[in-house]
């Protein structure tokens, strides 16, 4: 009997909402990361108010950890219209920021492909916004649809034995359990789930739903994990994914 292949160890957290007032909170807890995981994914809302100085604090906490750090931005990171400057602060610190792009990370257990996009609101089947009516409604719905296209594009050409979708907004309703159903349409977007299923991803990671739950699954059977820090209540979770999909 052949031994099982080694898993790729994917650490993940989201919604750390960094600011000068909590400088130093995460870095000590991240010291053991190289022993625990092959890479770290951060699922958006890196900052509280979307300010450059908060991004600098995030970079202090999450750079040079000994493993690649790959992020998407969240809605908080866009609030001050400084997202491009935030991206530059992070890139200059060696942190990858994805928006409609994919990246392949080599690990001892094989390559991991990460497709990333922030995502956006829209809702879920039977209770979603429609591209109809006022221009404001079309803009809202259109942005949600476009965000899923960005995720789909991010998966294209992403060639790796293990492929992960990284978003801020949720691709499924499962992980929103605990949030009021009235706001689910503002927390996620089923088209993100469709993109993950169509890509044949092995795992989907998201944040944003602070009152949700950690575990869900797409209609196509892809495991979904909500790693919003108020949900996982730890510095990060580690998911061991076996290349090839065989346990």
């Amino acid at each position, binding site marked *: 009997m052949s031994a099982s292949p080694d898993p790729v160890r994917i650490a993940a957290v989201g919604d750390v909402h960094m600011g000068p007032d909590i400088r130093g909170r995460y870095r*000590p*807890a991240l010291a053991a990361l190289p022993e625990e995981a092959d890479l770290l994914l951060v699922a958006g809302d890196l900052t*509280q108010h979307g300010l450059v100085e908060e991004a600098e604090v995030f970079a202090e906490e999450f750079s040079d950890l000994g493993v690649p750090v790959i992020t998407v931005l969240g809605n*908080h990171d866009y609030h001050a219209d400084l997202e491009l400057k935030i991206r530059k602060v992070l890139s200059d610190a060696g942190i990858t920021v994805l928006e409609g792009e994919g990246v392949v990370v080599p690990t001892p257990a094989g390559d991991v492909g990460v497709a990333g996009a922030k995502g956006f609101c829209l809702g879920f089947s039977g209770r979603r916004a429609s591209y109809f009516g006022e221009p404001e409604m079309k803009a809202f719905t259109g942005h949600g649809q476009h965000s899923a296209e960005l995720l789909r594009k991010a998966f294209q050409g992403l060639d790796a034995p293990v492929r992960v979708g990284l978003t801020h907004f949720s691709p499924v309703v499962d992980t929103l359990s605990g949030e009021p159903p009235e706001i689910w349409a503002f927390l996620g977007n089923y088209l993100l789930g469709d993109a993950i299923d169509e890509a044949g*991803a092995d795992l989907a990671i998201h944040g944003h739903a602070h009152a949700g739950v950690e575990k869900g699954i797409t209609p196509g059977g892809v495991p979904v994990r909500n790693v919003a820090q*108020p949900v996982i209540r730890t510095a990060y979770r580690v998911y*061991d994914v076996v290349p090839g*999909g065989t346990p």
Partner: protein
Amino acid sequence: MNDVQLARRLERALIDDERTHEMGVRIVVAGGRIVASGEVASEERRQAVLAVICEADPGLPVSDQLTLASPDAPPPSGHERIIPPEH
């Protein structure tokens, strides 16, 4: 303005105010007082929440039932083995 309307106004202020942008703070107005609950990340953020509430409605006493997140993120707790679907 009734108690429910006041609570919604205060919650909106906490989301909109540049000092807070807090979406996880719950406000209940009952018995002639304002109750603020939910978790915030630091003492500074707690004080900002209380300041926004007091400025928006200085007329009622505020019951501070906010909780602070742990000052140190705890270490991770084990690994979960993920079984991807057959593609």
